[in-house]
């Protein structure tokens, strides 16, 4: 029984990371119809920002402060990815609105450049980030079942991010503008909303969330220039499965993929499990081609 619970917990843990990554994607895709393939590299930016924060603490601050670095690094990774996302939107993405497939290719190029930049700056081998001591160990539930604090912390972090996004989208004026642009861009523009500004803000926030995801990933393993590519395809599948337009769709997509992934991998093996998950997704799309939640609109295309 303990094994099943552990699998379930692992599944939820994977889902939470996917959710954090896919949140930004779903928002930018839903709003601007832009596929940001460099999203994985923004994860990497967040991860390296965490690494740098740690190095700064090690070098300039007393050792007793070291354990607190992680809280600061969450902020640092968000800001770093946010700024790069903002720059990316201003310089490149805004020329590609209305051409989703082209945006995919161009951002893939950005991703390549960022990866190579990281390789030049930090070296090709992975670097380790030392987790703070208060995250070592685990919560013992039964004698055979212990939940690592790191994974629990990530769960909590994702919950906080999700709540913050929810409040931002549904409870603030900026969020209302964002939803308006998402539902009907022309109408929103007619009503005096600066869609340009909303677009850059949305893109930057999505990028920032990717940065936070990168920060969370440093708790799980070593980080390297290609850390983002490992998660990015799954994150896109979350968007396809969950649909765009509402947060609940993304949550559903992430849980669906994370849980089925870990269950199938437990029942069969890692490679067959992936195939089964893919078949399940294709089967699900037969039932709901637009994903779990589809935004209703009267436009034809």
């Amino acid at each position, binding site marked *: 029984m303990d094994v099943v619970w552990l699998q379930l917990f692992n599944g939820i843990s994977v889902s939470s990371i996917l959710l954090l990554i896919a949140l930004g994607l779903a928002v930018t895709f839903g709003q601007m119809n832009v596929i940001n393939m460099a999203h994985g590299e923004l994860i990497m930016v967040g991860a390296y920002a965490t690494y740098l924060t740690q190095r700064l603490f090690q070098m300039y601050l007393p050792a007793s402060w070291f354990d607190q670095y992680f809280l600061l690094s969450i902020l640092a990774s968000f800001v770093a990815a946010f700024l790069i996302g903002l720059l990316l939107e201003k310089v490149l993405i805004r*020329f*590609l609105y209305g051409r*989703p497939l082209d945006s995919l290719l161009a951002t893939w190029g950005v991703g*390549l450049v960022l990866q190579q930049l990281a390789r030049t700056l930090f070296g090709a081998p992975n670097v380790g980030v030392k987790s703070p001591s208060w995250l070592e160990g685990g919560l013992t539930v039964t004698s055979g079942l212990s939940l690592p604090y790191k994974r629990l912390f990530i769960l909590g972090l994702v919950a906080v991010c999700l709540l913050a996004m929810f409040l931002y989208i549904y409870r603030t004026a900026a969020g209302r503008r964002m939803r308006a642009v998402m539902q009907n861009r022309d109408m929103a523009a007619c009503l005096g909303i600066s869609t340009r500004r909303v677009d850059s803000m949305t893109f930057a926030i999505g990028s920032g969330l990717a940065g936070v995801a990168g920060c969370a990933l440093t708790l799980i393993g070593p980080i390297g220039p290609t850390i983002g590519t490992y998660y990015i*395809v799954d994150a896109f599948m979350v968007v396809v499965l969950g649909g765009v337009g509402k947060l609940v769709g993304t949550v559903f997509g992430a849980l669906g993929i994370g849980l089925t992934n870990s269950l199938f991998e437990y029942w069969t093996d890692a490679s*067959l499990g992936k195939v089964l*998950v893919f078949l399940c997704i294709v089967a699900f799309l037969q039932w709901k081609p637009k994903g779990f939640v589809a935004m209703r609109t009267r436009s034809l295309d």
Partner: protein
Amino acid sequence: MKVLQRASASRYGLATAYLLAAALLAAAPLFTSDFRLNLLAKFLAFAIAAVGLDLLWGYTGILSLGHGVFFGLGGYAMAMHLKLQASGGKLPDFMEWSGLSKLPWFWTLFQSFGMSVILGIAIPSLVALFLGYFTFRNRIRGVYFTILTQALVVISVTLITGQQAFTGGTNGITGYGELFGYSLAAPEMKIALYYVTAAVLVVVLLLSRFLVKSRFGKVLRAVRDGENRVRFLGYNPAKFQMAVFVLSAAFSGIAGMLFVLHVGIISPSMMGIVPSIEMVLWVAIGGRGTLIGAALGALLMNGAKSVFSETYPEIWLFFMGALFIVTTVFLPRGIVGLVADGWHRLRLLGRRRKGVPEHERSRYSAV
């Protein structure tokens, strides 16, 4: 009348260019070393895949990031046949290492060369038909379809890597060197294989051109430009999308088979996400929706890669990233578009001097 003459003049020019290219292709073995010829043959195989991708993306507007899989499946079909030949009735070496005692049933299909070639085309086509049927029918398209093809790449690579006993795992299938008992490394064999590849490329180009010029091709372009309108006219766009997806997967499978004959190895790393998207870049650079541009793009990009990536691997990746950005933002029609535009301008310039009225100028569009 004058317009007609001009059009036919430019047509003659194009025909001359094509003939020149064909002659160059035919004469290449005379003046290149064995090593270069082998490289060129490999690039020609890539060009076949690129033409198929152009049919799909340039003409029908469907972007597939999964063509590496079809390429790889073709390659594996050929490699399995060659491996069985090389093992001479015994179990292939990697199966012994993984502890298999009997040849798996699906491997026995690849004992005959003809059957392997058929399967090398049929398997990619069937995979494409499966994915196409379950997506296009439900009007899953555009970016959603593209993401699904990328997921197809990930699971195929994971599956082939994971099932080491049947597929050779990460190492792929290698360690063979003979076809019908003749060494693949012999110079005569290299030249023969080169000509086979070049001939296949020409056939693929002509077939694609025929399709594009036909009614079928018109519907494809209509699907690209206004899928719903095509539906309202009484066509079923899904059927056309499926057909072109399957055809383009088959081309990639053929390319993969030829690739294995030239290179002597196929492994999961050759069908992964990065090779798949590189194929798209070839088409984008050459000029999508032009067929010949896709083939040119494949040759140029691979030529540049083999020159630069070995000497400056770091700069190459920066360069490739920049190319992705520059082509999509500034050169959506690729090199062929650039040349056509330049040619058009030149002719306009000449005509202005001769005093052709303004309203007639706009009627000449670049080919």
